[in-house]
Structure formats: C-alpha cells, structure tokens
C-alpha cells in the first residue's frame, strides 16, 4: 500500500481515538473538573499547542492529483498534503532574505519576489513552508514514541508492582540495566545499529524513555495494591486480571497523562540533538538548526533559517512545558517529582 494512504489511515485512527478520549473525559466528573481547571490556568499555551496540532494535521492528510497545471510536474504525480499544496511552486534557486525580491548572494531576481515570508534556504526552499512541515515531524516523534513507550512501561511496571516476587525482580533488573547506560549514548548506539528511519528513531527513543515511567508505574502499583478497596475486591473473589484492569490501571491514568506531556518535550529536544549529530529525522526543526552551522559563518549571515526553526521549536516546547506543569500541579503534586 502506498505510504500516504497508510499515513492518512493512521491520522484517522488517531482522530477517532482523540474523539473517544474527549467523550470519556466529558463523562467523568473528576477528569472534566481537572481539565477545566487547566484550561482556565493555561488557556494561551493550550491554544498554541492546538495551532501546532492543526498544522501537523493539515500536513498529514495527503492525496495524489487535483493540482493546477504548475511548473512542478513531478509534484503532480506525488501525494501532496494540504500544506504542500499551499506552497506549490515556491522553490527558488538559493538563499533569499525574508520578503526579499532578489537572491541574498549575487542579487539575481527571484521567481516570486516578496512571497517568502521567512526567506528561502540554501537550495531555495521556502523557510516558512519548512517550519510548518516541522510541526508534523515533531508531533510524530513525540506522539509515536509515547505510544510505544507508555504501554510498554505499563505492561511491565504494573504486573511487576502488583505480583511482586520473581517477576518484579526480573523487571527491576531489566530497568536497572537499561537505566545504567548513559541515555544519549544508548540512544545513539541503538540508532546506529537499527538504522536512521523515523520508526527506528522513535523505537530507540522509546527504549531509552520507557524505564522512567515504568519505575513510576511500578511504585504507584505497589502503593495501590495495599489499599482497602483492592483487598476488598480480592476478598470478594474478583480475578487478578480484573483487579488490574478495573482497580489499578484507572488509578494510574493521571500519571500516564502527566508522563506523556512531560516526556513529549524531552523527546522533541532529544531529536534536535540527534539531528545535530547527523542521525535525526528528515525534515525536523533540528535539521534546520543543524544547517546554521554553515549559515552563521557566512558573510553576510543567513539568520532566518535557524531563527524560524528555533522559534517554532521553542514555541512548542514552552507551551507543552507550561501545560505539563499545570497538569502535574492539578492531577498529582507528589508522585512524579519523586521519580525525577
């Protein structure tokens, strides 16, 4: 199957999941109160995140054809997202400053003078367009990695904490082993061995990232296991798997949400570092910043590429961090801090 169809399907599934989540939250008094409080405290940051999400979404829905006859004959036969379609034929030949009419070095006239809000890069691509496309990459890295790491952590952490004994020893040993390797080095080693595809990078990030949450989940399960309602359920003859699913797991959900948000910003920042080392995801803001190595030593300096990518990265991380803080304060002031 073609890549864009798979990607569209994944986006559809995610949207359905999101809708189900929203319905679930609205039904529960506890959760809707918590989210109302966060909305009141962090309205601005949530709106910024929603903006990034929208851009990423617009860039994720792609289809072939339906393009006006432009100069870009190749693009007409490839899957193009909505964002791609907005910037079709925006390619110039080389650097140009924001809203300039001429190329930055040499001064040849541009094909579309004054149309490049944030200028163009080395091979003439519109920087505004690239910055918008970076949103999808960043959310993909953060989202996909969390979708891999959090279930993994729950799968190992919860039974380890609940059943204890041999199982706990084994899980704890695996966690200590993974945690004892320096995070960034382990990440690099995994990527070099597994390859540099987006999926491999997300997998590597998940392998290095799940341990922290696994420890939290195990610790919290250890506490929950001793509570009266769990003992009561056991005394009433409820099966172990049902206790895990009905009485333990729902009480870990606030931790899942906090971890997801706090992990997210760390993951996107890690990807930037990986890009810097030459093993990042294609099209990320990190790669755009990476190019600044050469651009800032030119004369006169090309500053708009790194400025745009840096600002886009900063905006996302900042708003996620602000929301993460509010979430932590509202949902759980203690547990997560202990795990840091």
């Amino acid at each position, binding site marked *: 199957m073609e890549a864009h169809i798979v990607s569209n399907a994944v986006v559809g599934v995610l949207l359905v999941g999101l809708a189900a989540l929203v319905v679930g939250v609205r039904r529960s008094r506890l959760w809707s109160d918590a989210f109302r409080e966060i909305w009141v405290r962090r309205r601005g940051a949530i709106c910024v995140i929603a903006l990034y999400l929208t851009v990423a979404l617009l860039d994720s829905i792609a289809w072939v054809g339906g393009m006006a006859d432009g100069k870009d004959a190749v693009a007409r036969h490839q899957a193009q997202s909505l964002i791609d379609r907005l910037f079709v034929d925006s390619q110039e030949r080389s650097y140009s400053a924001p809203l300039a009419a001429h190329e930055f070095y040499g001064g040849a006239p541009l094909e579309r003078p004054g149309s490049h809000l944030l200028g163009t890069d080395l091979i003439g691509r519109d920087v505004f367009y690239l910055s918008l496309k970076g949103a999808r990459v960043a959310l993909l890295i953060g989202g996909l990695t969390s979708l891999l790491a959090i279930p993994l952590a729950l799968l190992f952490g919860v039974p380890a904490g609940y059943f204890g004994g041999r199982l706990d020893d084994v899980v704890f*040993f*695996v966690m*200590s*082993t*993974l*945690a*004892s*390797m*320096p995070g*960034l*080095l*382990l990440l*690099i*080693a*995994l990527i*070099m*061995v*597994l390859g540099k595809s987006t999926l491999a990078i997300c997998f590597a990030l998940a392998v290095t990232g799940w341990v922290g949450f696994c420890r939290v989940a195990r610790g919290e399960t250890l506490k929950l296991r001793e509570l009266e309602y769990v003992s009561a359920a056991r005394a009433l003859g409820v099966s172990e798997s049902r206790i895990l699913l009905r009485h333990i797991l729902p009480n870990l959900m606030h931790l899942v949400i906090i971890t997801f948000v706090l992990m997210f*910003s760390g993951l996107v*920042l890690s990807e*930037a*570092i990986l890009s*810097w*080392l*030459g*093993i990042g995801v294609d099209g990320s803001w*990190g790669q755009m*910043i*990476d190019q*600044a*190595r050469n651009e*800032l030593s030119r004369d006169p*300096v090309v500053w708009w590429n*790194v400025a745009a990518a*840096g600002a886009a*990265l*900063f905006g996302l*991380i*900042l708003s996620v*961090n*602000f929301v993460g*803080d509010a979430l932590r304060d509202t949902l759980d002031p203690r547990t997560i*801090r202990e795990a*840091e």
Partner: protein
Amino acid sequence: MLAYLVRRLTYGVGVVFGVLLFLFVLFFTVTSPDDVARKALGERVPPAVIEQWKANHGYDQPLFPGPGAWTENMLFEHYRRMLTFDFGRSDADDTPIAQRIRSGMMPSLTLTLPLFGLSLLTAIPLALLVAFFRETYIDRLGVVISVLAMSVSILLYIIGAQYVVGRLLHWFPISGFDSDPQLIVRFLALPLLVGVLAGIGGDVRFYRTVFLEESNTDYVRTARAKGCGEGRIMARHVFRNSLIPLLTRIILAIPFLFMGSLLLESFFGIPGLGAITVDAIQGNDFSVLRTMVYIGSLLFVFGQIVTDLSYGLVDPRVRLE
C-alpha cells in the same frame, strides 16, 4: 553494613553483566561483524579482505559458545575484553581505544568539573532564594524564567553564544583547546557559560520543589512558631534536611563528569571523551561507541552504590541493611 555493601556490589556486577549482554546483542547479533567490516572497508570488497579484516580486529570467531568452542567465541571474548579493560583497536582507524580514552579524560574533566561546580553554585542559591520568597511574584517570576530557560534547545544556546560572544563581541575564541592553564580559561569560558545556561532552568525548578516540600513539614512550622527568623529556617532547617534528594542528584552526576559533554565538546573543539564519541558516530565506529556505553554504565553503577552509602552518612535515621 558490610552485608549490605556485599549485596549491593553483587547486584552492581549483575547489572554490568546485563549491560554487556545488551551490548553484545546490539553490536554482534543485530549488526554482524561482517556488516561492521563492510562499513569500514566499503561495500564492494572481496570476501577474503573482509575475513582478513575480521581476523585483524578479533572478530573471526563464532558468535555463540558451542561444542569445541566454549571459550573461543565472540560472546566470551566480548565479556573477557570488556571486563579486563582490553578494548582493542578502533574499527574505523585502528588506534588503540584505551589510549584514546586515557587522552580524552583530562580535557573532559577540565570542562565538566568547573561546569558542575558552577552549576551547583548558581542553581542552589537561586533555588533557595526563590523558595524563600514562595508564593510571591518573585517566586512566580523565577518559575516562569526557569521554564523559559528549559524550553530552549541546547543547540540554540550553543549557536547563540558562539555567534554573539565569539563573533560579534570577540570576547572569547569560538572554539579550541590548549593545555596551557592561562590560555585554557579563555577557551573554556564560552562552553562553561553555555553549559550553565542550558542546565540552570531545570536545576532551579528541581531544587525549588525540594526546598518547598521541606518547608511544609511540621518541624519547620514548630521552628517558625518559636520565633525563628525565615533566613535561619531556610539555612538550618530546610536546607539541611533537603540534602538527601540533593545528594541523590549530585553524587549520581559525578561519575558522568568523566564522560565529558557530547555537544559542548564537539562544538567548542575540546578533545575530550564527548568529542571522541561524536567522531565515532560520524565514522561508524562501533567499537568506540560500545566501549563508551560500557564505561558510562560502569560509572553509573559505581555512582549509585556511593549514593546509597552516602544516605547513611547524611541522615542517621537511614540504616543500611
């Protein structure tokens, strides 16, 4: 105490063995020695040359133990080499790895030790200050600035500092290193500045929560009730009792000082272990990378044992059993 130490050490050795197994799986089975040879020599080399290269680098034995080869296999060799610190030669350029690590340790420490000290000396007083003014605008401002500082990628700090301080103001050289103690200060100024800036947001926030948690305890209220000044409470009661979480974070960081800083070193041209690692990444040098991961985890396990033991020293209530 002794029994605890023995048990703790045994577990540490177990973890190191686990790490070695993980590294073996990653670097010998997921990528076979043939892949490594092809990466070093190029895709289109005759099999004989690959065999020769494998023999030269000690990769020419079967991977797993089997009949007649209980000790002559890569798994055994891998453990033997790593545990005896016989790291062999680099896959990429044939230099002895142990020698490279020895030569990289000092430059790394000249960067990381002052960086570590400076970070502590700025972050802890700042956090105490912010915690002292808790629930005022100073506290809120401090938290917002911390989150702002945390949200900037370290890459932007590096690029910004190199550009503004190095290129526009010409205060310090952009990159480089020298063993002459008078010159080294000029070379280290910029990486130190960047390192402190990049870490300070997260540090201040962490220490602040630790201090705040401690100032909500009963004995702090008692101290206040009997008329202790706020400054005295912060210094004598809150700070001293916060030492346990602080120590966990601080002692655990010490072993990693040897590893250097990947980004700062490669950026500012400091020939430390971090820069060696970055070279290994760019040169597909698996042997160096795997050695660095191993050394890192050795240091971590060691640091963790020291941390656990230090609890007993700081807090007499903790019994090590």
